[in-house]
């Protein structure tokens, strides 16, 4: 991959400087050395700021990326996972439960992908079925009953497009979540941690704050899906990734998300603990802001937040 090549070149530069230091002994002044290192750091920052939408998509899907249960481990204490939708099954593609987040009791719900082939199959690649969305809603309602804030972590290629999911009402499950999340009387904080895949992502992503990790994406359709429909050629995914404007910066500019959470240099997979720390810091700040609002205020603001989205039309009259 092109990006790996560039990344290696940057890493090599660092090594070169190190070798230069060793080779020249004290001949190279300390300030020169600092300047060189500074230049390289600058280059790296520019490189990661300017990676293409397709490269960001690759990072969002990186197999080493922290998933929901990793964040749970880093952010929550005494986590109790809760299972089942109380009507059909437990969906392992969505996990949830309560725990303590920096001294507060919270409900946390998120998509879960697997690390190896066996886990990936068991988690259905993070593609939830109706029972997953219904479980999520059950846990959110439980949180609302006891006035606990809800944190959701979104990382899914999309809702599962299979026969069983259709039979059990995939569309109905998603639609119901959208409507009910809009009126749950507790703060809902959403973080897109990897892939925000269409309705399957949105079904747990209606909230008072929507954060996105720097290398995550949020899209109405996967770049591959878009390419195969619009270009009739799935290999045009790179083009589609650009055309769809799915990166955090684009979405922030359009007013669709509230905050971009910076990742450790090179991506969250290189330092999951630091990534979780950054996600947690952003959540803590948002919780403090929202805690001051009355329920009526909270719900009105949540409504208006989405009500304003998409004022992209001309009035011909």
């Amino acid at each position, binding site marked *: 991959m092109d990006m790996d090549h560039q990344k290696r070149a940057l890493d090599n530069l660092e090594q070169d400087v190190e070798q230069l230091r060793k080779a020249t002994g004290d001949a190279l002044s300390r300030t020169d050395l600092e300047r060189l290192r500074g230049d390289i750091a600058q280059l790296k920052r520019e490189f990661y700021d300017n990676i293409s939408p397709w490269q960001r998509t690759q990072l969002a899907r990186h197999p080493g990326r922290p998933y929901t249960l990793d964040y749970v481990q880093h952010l929550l204490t005494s986590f109790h996972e809760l299972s089942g939708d109380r009507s059909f099954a437990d969906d392992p593609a969505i996990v949830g439960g309560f725990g303590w987040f920096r001294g507060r009791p919270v409900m946390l719900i998120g998509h879960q992908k697997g690390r190896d082939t066996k886990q990936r199959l068991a988690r259905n690649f993070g593609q939830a079925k109706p029972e997953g969305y219904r479980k999520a809603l059950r846990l959110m309602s439980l949180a609302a009953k006891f006035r606990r804030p809800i944190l959701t972590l979104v990382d899914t290629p999309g809702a599962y497009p299979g026969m069983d999911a*259709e039979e059990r009402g995939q569309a*109905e499950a998603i639609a119901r979540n959208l409507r009910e999340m809009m009126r749950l009387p507790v703060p809902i904080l959403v973080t897109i941690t990897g892939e925000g895949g*269409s*309705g399957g992502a949105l079904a747990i992503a209606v909230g008072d704050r929507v954060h996105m990790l720097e290398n995550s994406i949020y899209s*109405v359709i996967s770049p591959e899906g878009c390419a195969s429909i619009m270009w009739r050629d799935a290999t045009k995914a790179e083009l589609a990734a650009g055309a769809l404007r799915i990166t955090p910066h684009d*979405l922030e500019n359009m007013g669709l998300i509230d905050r971009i959470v910076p990742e450790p240099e090179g991506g969250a997979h290189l330092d999951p603990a630091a990534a979780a720390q950054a996600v947690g810091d952003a959540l803590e700040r948002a919780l403090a802001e929202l805690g001051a609002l009355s329920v009526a205020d909270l719900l009105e603001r949540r409504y208006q937040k989405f009500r304003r989205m998409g004022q992209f039309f001309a009035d011909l009259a």
Partner: protein
Amino acid sequence: MAWFKRDKDSIQSPVPPEERRVRTEGMWDKCPACRKIIWRKDLESNWQVCPKCEHHFKLGSAKRLELLLDDARWTEHDSELTSSDPLHFTDTRPYKQRLREARQKLGMNDAIVTAEGVLSGRQVICCAMEFGFIGGSMGAVVGEKVTRAIELAIARRCPLIIVSCSGGARMMEGTISLMQLAKVSGALARLDAAGLPYISVLTDPTTGGVTASYAMLGDLNIAEPGALIGFAGPRVIEQTIRQKLPDGFQRAEFLLQHGFLDAVVPRPQLKNYIASSLEFFLA
């Protein structure tokens, strides 16, 4: 050099070529269900339902409102809203061009008509989607118009009817389209809290983001016979599971059986069905 030459002009045909055949194009349709030939006038006078086998063809948004609203009269709202192409989206053709063509072809500015009218003597807000306009897809304009229609229903305290016919969210407006699902569903939560009825009518086809938001959130979800209704389209599912779907999968009757519809109502009875339901809720 030729041996001989025609003195006069070449022989003129008494009838110009374009009139030599009996023109049947545009007069007849073939029903895809019973494969019989139907006179188009018959089809039109029967609200696009096959007079022989009752197959439901797609019905345009204006005809739909004519079917449902008294005296075929209504006041349209927000008809002047049109997409500003926020992503400057271009695939094989610019989105702007697709919009222009759809506008010219249909004489409307986006894929839905939101209207206020009278249904069997009762004031209603009624929205009808137009599949001919980029597959009835929902972008910022459809999302905004539906939301305004819902808010109007709340302000007027009158029932809401939405007739869906859509391939889903509009890809060319990216994540903005996706957010319309949340926006509309939020407005429906308010309509629900206001104690007003919402009847969702699902017609062929209703899939993707429209099904996964307002189409499935009716107090009553009713569908026309044979309508394709689902979240994922049949082709996507077939690609996922790598096998052919059984006949009737994702059809209205299938959804009725699986508990996601209140009823399957043939088009000729649709207006009466809605009227009597509203009567029950509001009398």
